[in-house]
Every structure is written in C-alpha cells, then in structure tokens.
C-alpha cells in the first residue's frame, strides 16, 4: 500500500514536471534575436513612382531602387570600401548618398541616377567630416552641407551644385554655431549657436541678411526649431522654456516670443512634430507616455492614421517616407513582440502592401509581452519602467535581470528590443527603469538626475527592484543587473553599493571611472565641459563624489560574480583601468568573466564579438541565477 502511494506520488511529480516543462518556451538560438535586418530605410521617390531601400550585400550596404509595385529592381551602388550612412532622393531620377569609410573617415557625397548611371563623387574628404544640412528635397540642383575642413572643430556651411560639383561657402562659422537649418526651398536661414552652456537661436529672413539672435537659453531649457510658417512670421519649435514639459509652440521670428502653444501634454514632453511641406503646416505632434501617441493637427492625416490603425491594430505606426504630393507613404510598424515590417500604403485606395519584415525568423507567439509599470521611490517620486515577464511561466518568484538604460538620459521605450526578448526567452523577467535624469518626463525629472550618478539615479533602480520583490514578482535570491555604457556603470555601482541586492552583474563597456569619462570631452570644448560639469560633476570640485561613485575605486566592496566586456580601443572606458579593476577583483577571489576585444571600441561593431558577448552573458546568468 505504502509502495503504491509512493509510486502515485512519483507519478504526480513527474507529470507536473513534464507539464511545467511544456509550459516553458523552447530556447530560440541567440543569433536569431540579433539578426541584422535585411532591407531598411525605405524611401519613396518625389513623384511616387519608385521605392528605394538599403540592403546589405557582401558585408556592405547598398542602395536598391524598384518601381512602386516592386518590379525592375536595380542595385545602384557597389562600393566595397565604404558604407552608406545616409541617402535621399535629390530629384525624381537622382539619389544622393553619403558614404563613409571606417572610423568615420574618408567620407564622400555621391550622386547617382536611378538607372545606376552617372555615378559621380561630388565631394570627397579624407580627414574632415561631411554633415548634410539639406536632408530631403533638392532645389535648383543645390544642397547645403556643413564641412569642418577649414578647422576640424567647427563646421562651415557650403552650397554644393550636385551637377557640377561646385562648392561655395555660404556662411563661415564664427566658431560657436553648432547646427544649421535650411528652409523648405534650400536657403540657409536658421542656426543654433552655443557656448556650451547657453544656446542661442539665430534667424534671418533672407540669406543675404545677417543672422539675428532670436532667443537665448540655458542648456537646461531646450528650444528645438522644427520649421518656418508659410508666411515667414514664426518658427515652429518644441520648447520647455518657462514650463516643465516640452510643448509644441509657435515663436516669433524676430523677438523669439511665444505666439501660442500649439499642443502640450500634462505628463510627458512632446517629443516631435511633423511638418508637411506640401500643406505648409504642422500635421501632428508626437508624444510618448508608455507608448508613442499622436495629437493630430490636420484632418487628412488623422484619417490616414485612423485607417491604418484599423488595418494594423495594436501596432506602433510611423510614416517613414512619402512622395511630395503626400499621396503615397512608406509605413514602418512594430510592437513589443514584433521587430516590425515596412509597408507601402496608398491612402486614396486604402491599399497596404508589405515590403519587408525586419526580422522574419522570429515567431511573434514566442516573444514575451512588455508591460508598462510604475512605482513610488523612497522620496515619493513616481518612476515609470517596463517589465517583460518570460512566457509560459508562473508570474511569481522569477529570476530578474535589471537593465539600466545605456545613456543616462535616453529613456526606454515600448517596442521590440532584442536584448530584452533574448533574456526573457531564457526565462528571466527583464526590468527597465526610466529613473530620474531620463529625458521625456519634463525638465524637473531630467535635472533631478544631475550629479546623481550612483546617487538618486541608482536609488531609483534600487527602489524599483525592492518594489519588484515586494510585489512577489522577483525572487530576491536571483536578481542580476546588466547594462551597456552608462548602464554598465550603473550595474557595477549597484554591485558595490548594494552587494546584498544582486547575485551577479554584467557590464558591457560600462564606465568604471568618472574622471576618465569626463576626460573624453576635448579641452577645446571648454564650454561643453562646463555643461558636463553641471550634469555629471566637476572632477576637481566634486572629487569626493567622483571617488565615491566610480567603481574602479571600490573593488573591495564587490563580492558577487561579475562579467565585464571591454573594447581595447574604447576611448570612453580606459582598458588599463578595466584591466586593473579585473586584476583586483581576481585577487580578491571574486569570480570574474572578462571579455577583452582588441579591435573594438565602446560598441562592438563586429557582430561575432557581440554574439560572443551575449553567449557569455547567457552562460554567466545561467550559472549565477539558476535555482540552487
């Protein structure tokens, strides 16, 4: 009888185990998550007859052109040395593209006819850089470009004839202008000057006139010009001057005064606005709560989007290109579980045709859902974030990987993320926090992160993790922290400041030393240095703080396993310091996995190196977060 009961028990256990095994998703090969997209950067020709796109071939990216209905594909470029970094339609039968060689050197601006003939190098440099001021339509065969060939630290504005290749200086940079703006007809009429701390918006009515200062503001205030009104009386801009959240406003061209607020959102910054050259007006403003949303300023665009939303429910939709009549569009879509697709769309017939999938090898059903979450910090601030739970598991007591975002300022957004999906597929809950200092939630939230690296910014992450534990989602014995760049700094900081919270941590090109990080700013940009001194800290005056938060000084406090990936040529994280850091950890018998790549810089360009890193990360997490 006892024996029978034992067998029964064993049977129940085995069945449960089998069931729970079936419940978990199979491991998708790592390479699939990080596969490079096949076709990207779809554009419509101005007359709407052709579609162009970029496609990799033999390790280089090339431009292809085909008719609107997908016939007669022609490869336009076949440069084996340089890659295409930017391209656009110059006219109905000509494409302009910017070619750059390795390490952003050896750049060239090239024009080519859409039948592949008349491929001509208009501008070529070896040691200076080319920036395009004109990025869409070309007027009278002229484009505006910015070049730093006179002085490598400043960019002058030139006008270039794309037929003859003739280059003429339009404006000599007095040294403080950082950005140039062209008006819709190719005239250089607006610029932003900066002394690093304060920005000045410059405007002129005619190219022949001198620039007038319209408005000056501290770097903490942003005024981002978007375009001119048709009557040249005002500038459309995103501004958070005298307000916390960025709003879409209309500024007076001469006085810089705000005429009116076109749109603002109570909780988040307005992040972008689309100006229709065809209509000569703003058509919608974009903002991002937990997902991207639009406020329509034009009924025809509203109806276009409404129709698209019916065709593509629960999907992020972006109009990435249109013909000049705005009757044909390229639509880019994605969701949290889908890397997305490109479509061509004709609003008049409501015809939507798929052009390409970004990553067709992934099955949407296998991907995990990314959900917005928010929690209250110790000082009662509401902080938002995203939580991706692994599919097919119960939703409690999960191993968690916390990923602080890779720049101190740029937020996490809802959408497909290879890293997140990869980790979720391996059974980890992935937690991303838009801690204070993140842009997009208003000026106050952003500036609250100043000089708080490793301070309140880190506390927000800590509070988020504690919240996850209190919600019983996280298993307090199985939490890891991993990040790239700033995220790596945050991970290492978390490991030495909260050794009890994390079982292990991984840093991919994470800053180990703030002194070194601030050395990056070339000293001739003294003004920018001032800005960094305000946002991050002053290495001379805030030396105590630098020493207190830089992981390189605190190897003695790290007790849990660490994974570190470092490029030997990284200008922002000194390899010698990382070597020293690893050496000291090893000396203290902390298990360290060190991946050093000789030919890589901050970001590993070679896909094999990146994949190797993720493979090591998988092994590392598996070893340290598996249930013991």
């Amino acid at each position, binding site marked *: 009888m006892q024996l029978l009961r034992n067998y029964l028990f064993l049977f129940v256990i085995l069945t449960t185990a089998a069931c729970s095994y079936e419940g978990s998703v199979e491991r998708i090969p790592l390479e699939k998550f990080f596969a490079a997209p096949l076709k990207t950067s779809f554009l419509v020709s101005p007359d709407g007859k052709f579609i162009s796109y970029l496609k990799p071939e033999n390790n280089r990216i090339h431009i292809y052109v085909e008719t609107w209905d997908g016939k007669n594909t022609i490869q336009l470029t076949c440069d084996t040395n340089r890659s295409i970094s930017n391209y656009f339609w110059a006219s109905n039968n000509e494409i302009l593209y910017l070619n750059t060689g390795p390490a952003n050197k050896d750049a060239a601006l090239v024009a080519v006819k859409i039948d592949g003939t008349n491929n001509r190098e208009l501008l070529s440099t070896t040691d200076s850089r080319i920036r395009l001021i004109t990025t869409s339509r070309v007027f009278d065969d002229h484009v505006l470009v910015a070049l730093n060939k006179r002085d490598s630290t400043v960019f002058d504005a030139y006008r270039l004839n794309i037929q003859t290749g003739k280059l003429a200086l339009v404006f000599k940079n007095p040294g403080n202008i950082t950005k140039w703006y062209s008006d819709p007809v190719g005239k250089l009429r607006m610029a932003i000057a900066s002394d690093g701390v304060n920005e000045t918006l410059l405007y002129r009515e005619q190219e022949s006139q001198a620039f007038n200062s319209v408005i000056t503001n501290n770097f903490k205030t942003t005024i981002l010009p978007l375009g001119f009104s048709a009557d040249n009386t005002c500038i459309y801009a995103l501004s958070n001057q005298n307000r916390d959240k960025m709003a879409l406003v209309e500024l007076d061209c001469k006085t810089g005064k705000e005429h009116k607020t076109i749109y603002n959102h109570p909780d988040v910054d307005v992040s972008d606005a689309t100006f229709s050259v065809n209509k000569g007006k703003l058509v919608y403003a974009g903002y991002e709560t937990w997902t991207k949303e639009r406020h329509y300023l034009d009924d025809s665009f509203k109806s276009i989007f409404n129709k698209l939303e019916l065709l593509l429910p629960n999907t992020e939709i972006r109009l990435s290109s249109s013909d000049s009549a705005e009757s044909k569009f390229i639509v880019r879509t994605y969701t949290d579980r889908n890397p997305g697709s490109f479509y061509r769309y004709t609003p008049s017939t409501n015809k939507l045709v798929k052009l390409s999938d970004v990553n067709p090898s992934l099955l949407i059903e296998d991907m995990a859902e990314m959900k917005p979450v928010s929690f209250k910090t110790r000082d009662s601030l509401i902080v938002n974030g995203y939580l991706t739970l692994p599919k097919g598991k119960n939703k409690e007591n999960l191993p968690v990987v916390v990923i602080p975002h890779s720049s101190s300022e740029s937020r996490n957004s809802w959408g497909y993320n290879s890293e997140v999906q990869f980790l979720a597929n391996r059974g980890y809950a992935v937690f991303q926090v838009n801690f204070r200092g993140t842009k997009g939630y208003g000026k106050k939230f952003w500036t609250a992160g100043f000089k708080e690296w490793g301070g309140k910014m880190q506390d927000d992450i800590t509070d988020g993790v504690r919240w996850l534990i209190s919600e019983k989602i996280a298993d307090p014995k199985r939490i890891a922290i991993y990040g790239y760049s700033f995220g790596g700094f945050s991970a290492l900081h978390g490991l030495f400041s909260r050794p009890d919270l994390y079982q292990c941590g991984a840093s991919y090109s994470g800053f180990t030393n703030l002194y070194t990080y601030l050395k990056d700013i070339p000293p001739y940009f003294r003004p920018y240095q001032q800005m960094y001194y305000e946002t991050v800290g002053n290495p001379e005056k805030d030396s105590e703080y630098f020493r207190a938060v830089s992981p390189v000084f605190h190897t003695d406090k790290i007790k849990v396993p660490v994974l570190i990936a470092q490029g030997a040529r990284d200008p922002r994280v000194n390899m010698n*310091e990382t070597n020293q850091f690893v050496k000291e950890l090893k000396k203290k018998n902390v298990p360290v996995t060190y991946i050093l790549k000789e030919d890589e810089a901050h970001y590993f360009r070679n896909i094999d190196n990146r994949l190797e890193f993720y493979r090591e990360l998988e092994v590392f997490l598996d070893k340290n977060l598996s249930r013991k």
Partner: protein
Amino acid sequence: MKHYQQTYRKNFALVIIFLILITAALGGTLYTAYNFTANYVENEFASQKIEVLEETIKPYNDFFQNKIPEISFYQGYLDSTQAAKYIDTIFRKFNFVDRVVFYDATISNRTFSEGIRVNNFSLGPKAIYQFSRNIAPDSILVFKENVATKPFSLKSGDEFNKMALKFSGFIELADTSRVLNDSDRFNVFYSVMSKRISYMNIPRREEIKIYKDLMLSNQSLSPMYELDMFSFYLDPLKLRIKNTKPELYESINIKPLVYESLENTSEIISNDLPLSGPFSDYKLYFSSSKTFLRKEINARFLPIAGGLIISYFILVLIAYLIFRNLNINSKLFKLQYDFINNLTHEFKTPVSVIKIAGNNIRSASQLSDRERIHYGKILDEEADKLNDLMNKLLSFTQIENKAIQIKPENINLEVFCQNLIDSYRVKYPDFDISYMIRGVEYFRSDPVLLGSIFQNLIDNAYKYSRPDNKVLKIKITKIKKQLFIKFSDRGIGIPTKDLNNIFEKFFRVQNEYNQQGSVGLGLAFCKELVKFMHGNISVKSVVGKGSEFTIELPYEL
C-alpha cells in the same frame, strides 16, 4: 643417515640473532635519519629564504601593483587636497613609504617658466608639495608658480625634469595608432631608482595624440592639460620582516648589499638574499647559531626516531608473540603425548588383567565355582572399566564438539543427592560424604550431565584425600537467579601454581595420588559440561588443608 628427532624443537640462538639483527638495523636507521634530517634542515635554511622575501615584500608589491596605478584613475585631476588624502591612505597602510613629493603639472604649447620644453611642447610644474609623517604644515608646499618665497630649485625639481624628459621623448616617438603596451607603460611612466619610485599618471591614447600634435605642429595657444606626478621615497629598513620560518632563522635583518658579518665564528650559519626594485641596494640577511639549528634538527628528528622505535618495538612484540605461540604449541604437543601414554597405560591394565584371566581360564583344566566367580567378576569389572573409559572419551569429544543436547527435566535435588551419596557409601565405606540444601528444592537441568559433574568431583575428592581423612561436604544454595553447588573436601589441596591449569585437558598435578588410573580429563570434562550448561566453575584450595570447587549454574524454572 641422519635421524630427525620427531619432537618439538626450540632454537634460542635463532631468536637472539633475530633480536640482534633488528636492533642493529634500528641503530643504523636512526643514525642515517639523523644525518638526513640535519642535511634537510640545512637545505631548508638556504631555500626557505625566498618565502620570507615574498612575505616581506608583499606590502610593497601591493603598493606597487595597486596603489600606484590608482593615480592614473584620477586622470590628472588631483589637486593638493585630494593628493593629500590619497597620500594619507598610503602613509597609513605602507609604513616603508617615508616621504612623498607630489608634482601638480600641466602640459601646453605655451612657454612655462619652469619645466621642460621640446619643440612646442611644454611640461612644467604648477606646484610641488611634499608629504611625510608629522611634517610641519608650512613646509608642505615646496614650489608654486608665481610665488616668490617658494622658488623652483634643482633639488626639488630634478626628479620631475628627468621624468618630464623621458615623457617628452616618448611623446615624440609615440605610435598613436596602437594601444600602449605594458613595457611602454613601465619604461615611461615609472622610474624605479634606489629607495625611490616616481610615477606619472598614464594619459589615454587620445591625449598622447594631442600632445604629439602639440609638439610637432604649430598651433594656436592650447589649453592646459593636467598631469600628476608622484615621487615616493621609500625606506627599506622600515619594511616589516615577516619571519615565516622562525624555527629556521634566528634573526633576519635588512642590511646593505655589501654587508658581511665580521664575527665570522663557525658557530653562526648565515645566508642572504638581495632585495629588488627600489630596495636593490639592500639584502635580507639571515642568520642562526648552530645550537639553534641543532634544536630544530632535534625537533624534527624526534618524531622520526619515535616512529622508528615504535616499529622496532612492534617487531619485538610480534617476535615475542610468535615465540609464545610456539611455546604453547609445544606444551600442547607434550600434553597430547602424555595423554596417549596414559591412555595406552589405562587401556593396557584392564586388557592385561583380562588377558591373564583369559589365560588362567584357558590353562586351567577345571574351574572351581569360586575360581569361575572370581574370574567372571574380574572380567566383568575390567570390561566395565574399559567401557567407562571409552564412554568418558566419547562424551568428552562430543561435548567439545557440542554434539550432545541438553534434555532438561525437573530434578528434585534432595532425591538426586541422596541417591548419589547412597551409591558412594556402598562403593567407598570409608568416605564421609554429606550434603546440605538451602532455599531450593527443584532444579531444571539434564540429570545425566549434572550427575556426571557430581561424580567427577566426588571421585576427585575421594581420590585426592588421605585414606584417614576422606571427607566431602556438598552444599547447594540459591542466591538470586544462580544455583551454587560447593564441594568442600579435606584433601591434599592443589598447589597455587597449578590452580589455573587443573581445568586444562590432559593436565595432572604431579603427586603420589595419581600415579595411575588418571587421564587428566575429569576436571576438563566438568568445565566443558558446566560451560555447556551456561555456568561457571571455580576452585579455591590450600595445600594440605583441602579444596573447594564451586559450580554456579543459572537457575531457571
């Protein structure tokens, strides 16, 4: 033809030779072991100094490998207060650091009043500070730009200029396309001299590129780049010596490299090991007196000697045990030999009597009734004797091999004793035998076996008593769960030396009472029986006064 004696042989000479041999081996081994240990200790004295060096130099290595490179972490941003904090941690942790000079320097293409200039590249100190334990605050600052009271002097700036020169040489030839390798880093940014280490914070590749451009091209006035340099003055005599082998080294000192002990008596053994890096002018000097080392040799030799002696004694013990075994075997051999002798004799007597009687009957022409009865009686008695003898042997073998079984029944002790005594009174009219029973009436046991024990003991009591004093008292008592049966006689007694052997097979006490008719089985048989019945038999005896046998049997009813 040689005739082998078929008896047990004992050869004491062999035993003695064995003992002598192993004793000699012990002596030899002890001697070799001592020499070996002495050699070993002397070798260790020479070789273990490396470990002492490693332990002693460990804090210095930590200082050199970890603490000095930390300067680079500050990327040249150190100022006098930060530097003071950094140096303070050094003073606290590394007592061999005597004095630290901090050069707060700048690089530019401007011309400095001090420092060096190569082409357009200038490297000059902004200020020089020195730190040591208990330094007066006003003497910390050694030099500061544009402060007249603190001028730049060759004394304070010499080290700086040397490093700066080396650095500018490096900048001039630097290959900025490749990563700095370890040997570059050591050659350029470290300067290790006697009692002094200088270190300059290692610029990043980008900065080296900028410096090279500054040097080789004409540019507008550049900003000032920060550079930190430190000179650490070390005192080797303050290195803490860690004597990891205090048993080997009586004293360890740090001495100048040229030091030689003058008291070169043969009583002192010494050895030295030169220090490296900034301490290379000094050496670790190890010395021990011979008596000190001898103590160590003895300490190490003692357990070895102990081990050897223990194995020696184990060998002797084993030899003794083998010898004793042989002795016992030879005794057994003798006993068996005697037994066969006795048994033959025992059988011979009745057989010869029977033979004589048979002969007489055969040779007599006529037998009278008296003769017939006489011979018949003889034949009958002798046959009984033989039968009895065989029964005894048989049952003894059986009981020894546990081949018989107890058939217990309730015995009325009164009746049992009375019957026995009655039969003995008929047999030996001169035997005064009496019994007494206390506190027990019935006893459950095998009456045949119990009777056998009684008979044997009563027979012995009769046999070993002088003819005029044949007295036996049997006393049966029950104490707790044991039944005690005591047989007390007034016989000749048993000598103390034989008391232990009387229960052995074939053992007989040598005296006039058992010249014949005794096999030496009676008591051995009793003992086997009692053992078989889970009991115990013991004896007390005084020679000339009598013996008392006590049988103790478990009482169960």
